[in-house]
């Protein structure tokens, strides 16, 4: 569906809108198809993943299972167990702590911790995913803002200053080769020791991941004007600042938006990773960590999906902004 949205040209008028709707309708089927197949495979995968625990429960409830006794089944092949006990597989999709929760279990958990709690008037209670999503989102947005600003500034420096051109990019690349999981606790500890805690350390980790795609994209974007375009401004005796504002920055907009889409997703990852070393108090990262401490797989998966939905919304929002801005700039086609 995203493809249809991108290729439909803005300002194409009523006829264009009709074509857009038709194209969107045609795009729906493949998407539904993929979703359907994925969900089907997911349900199927629950069988081998959860079969042993399911048979244990059935045996405790009095059913006759082949072979008898959990001990005997421990090292058996899940496929063999499934073949031998076809009548007792119903439990694989309804356990409390399954190895792999079924899609509907995750969906129910997601619903209950978001809409369900909102309907009960507790939209922002401590158990609500809205609360945790907002904690993560605020760090993501702050970090994304810092990272984007830093990325643009560095790119402007790289394009205008030969020393920066030679020196900054290797460091920027090196910075991204360090696993963020190793770096995040250090950032949190160091900032905490100078009295900075809460939102800012998480935002900085998030900025650390998101500045990079912006630097790379903007360097390319700021250099995208053709030689003739730069020559033209040279004949006007334009200053470098005028060249930047009137030519380089507007010309770089398509590159900026492409970078922002990558950057905002990286920001979200950074904010989630930044929540892990803080003792898992709040945020989607905290939900993931707490879930894995207590074996709450359904909670882990619902937090994962919440993060994915959040990322999709953020990227979609930037895509929308991109269409509006580039459309208005006459660069949407």
């Amino acid at each position, binding site marked *: 569906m995203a493809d249809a949205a991108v290729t439909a040209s803005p300002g194409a008028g009523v006829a264009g809108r009709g074509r857009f709707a038709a194209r969107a309708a045609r795009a729906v089927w493949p998407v539904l198809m993929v979703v359907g197949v994925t969900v089907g495979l997911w349900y199927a995968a629950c069988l081998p993943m959860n079969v042993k625990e399911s048979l244990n429960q059935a045996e405790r409830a009095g059913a006759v299972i082949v072979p008898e006794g959990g001990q005997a089944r421990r090292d058996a092949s899940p496929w063999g167990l499934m073949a031998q006990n076809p009548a007792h597989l119903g439990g694989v999709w309804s356990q409390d702590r399954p190895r792999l929760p079924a899609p509907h279990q995750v969906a129910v958990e997601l619903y209950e911790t978001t809409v369900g709690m909102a309907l009960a008037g507790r939209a922002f209670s401590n158990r609500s995913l809205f609360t945790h999503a907002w904690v993560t989102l605020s760090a993501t947005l702050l970090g994304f803002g810092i990272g984007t600003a830093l990325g643009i500034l560095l790119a402007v420096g790289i394009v205008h200053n030969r020393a920066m051109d030679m020196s900054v990019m290797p460091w920027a690349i090196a910075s991204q080769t360090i696993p963020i999981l190793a770096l995040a606790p250090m950032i949190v500890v160091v900032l905490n020791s100078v009295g900075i805690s809460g939102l800012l350390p998480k935002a900085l980790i998030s900025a650390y991941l998101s500045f990079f795609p912006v630097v790379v994209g903007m360097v390319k974007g700021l250099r995208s004007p*053709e030689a*003739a*375009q730069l*020559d*033209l*401004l*040279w*004949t*006007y*005796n*334009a200053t470098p600042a*005028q060249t930047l504002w*009137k*030519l380089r920055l*507007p010309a770089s907009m398509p590159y900026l938006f492409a970078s922002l889409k990558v950057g905002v997703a990286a920001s979200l990852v950074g904010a989630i990773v930044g929540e892990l070393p803080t003792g898992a108090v709040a945020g989607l990262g905290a939900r993931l960590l707490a879930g894995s401490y207590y074996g709450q797989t359904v909670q882990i998966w619902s937090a994962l999906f919440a993060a994915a939905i959040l990322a999709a919304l953020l990227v979609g929002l930037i895509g929308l902004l991109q269409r509006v801005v580039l459309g208005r*700039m*006459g*660069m949407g*086609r």
Partner: protein
Amino acid sequence: MPQAAAALTEGAALPAGTGAVIAARGLDLTFRTADGPVQALSDVSLEIGRGEFVSFIGPSGCGKTTFLRVVAGLEHPTGGAIAVNGMTPDAARQARAYGYVFQAAGLYPWRTIAGNVKLPLEIMGFSKAEQESRVRKVLSLVELDGFANKYPWQLSGGMQQRASIARALSFDAGILLMDEPFGALDEIVRDRLNEELMRLWAATGKTVGFVTHSIPEAVYLSTKIVVMSPRPGRIIDVIESDLPAERPLDIRDTPEFLALAHRVRVGLRAGHAYD
């Protein structure tokens, strides 16, 4: 580049008294490339007087565009001397002595036609009111009055090139340098624009340097035709046109016109004899 620097200093002192707007003497330019040096200009000497329309014609690689770029300060000669309005090309550029029209219109897609024409005026610091009145004036000069608020993609290629000429005219420099401005347009549009350019030149009295591949275009437009030849780029012939100032399109069928075109063709062929 001490040699080039010396040449430019000498250039600053070149004859300002002769009345030539552009004066080049013994101009050399060698590009250093990965495949060794390429001599783009060799011993080019030329004078262009005020109000002349001078065409540069020759095959690719003959240095006609390079010469125009040297006049504009976009390239720097490695030998010889050149003066534009009695100054070095760089000083002339800083004094905004010329408008330059490139082969591609190069309009900014994010600006309207008026906004594009306004670009040099904004950079040069004209007042808002002055910008508006100048934009209106030059757009009517190139007959794009109704298109001020259109975007480039809404215009045909010929109209875009007219807008780019308007942009070069907007700050009213005395010299107009045009590098194959109609090269990418079809014959019919080209004829119309040539006629229009003729009218524009008569109305504004600018000194024009015009690079082209087309013999009829060069002969139709020019008061002086400079025939060039490649490897190394040099001047083969300078032809003063004796055609009348008033030139309808069908002047191209007169014997005088054909004689001039023939002389240009002979010059071009002589240049190719070395290949």
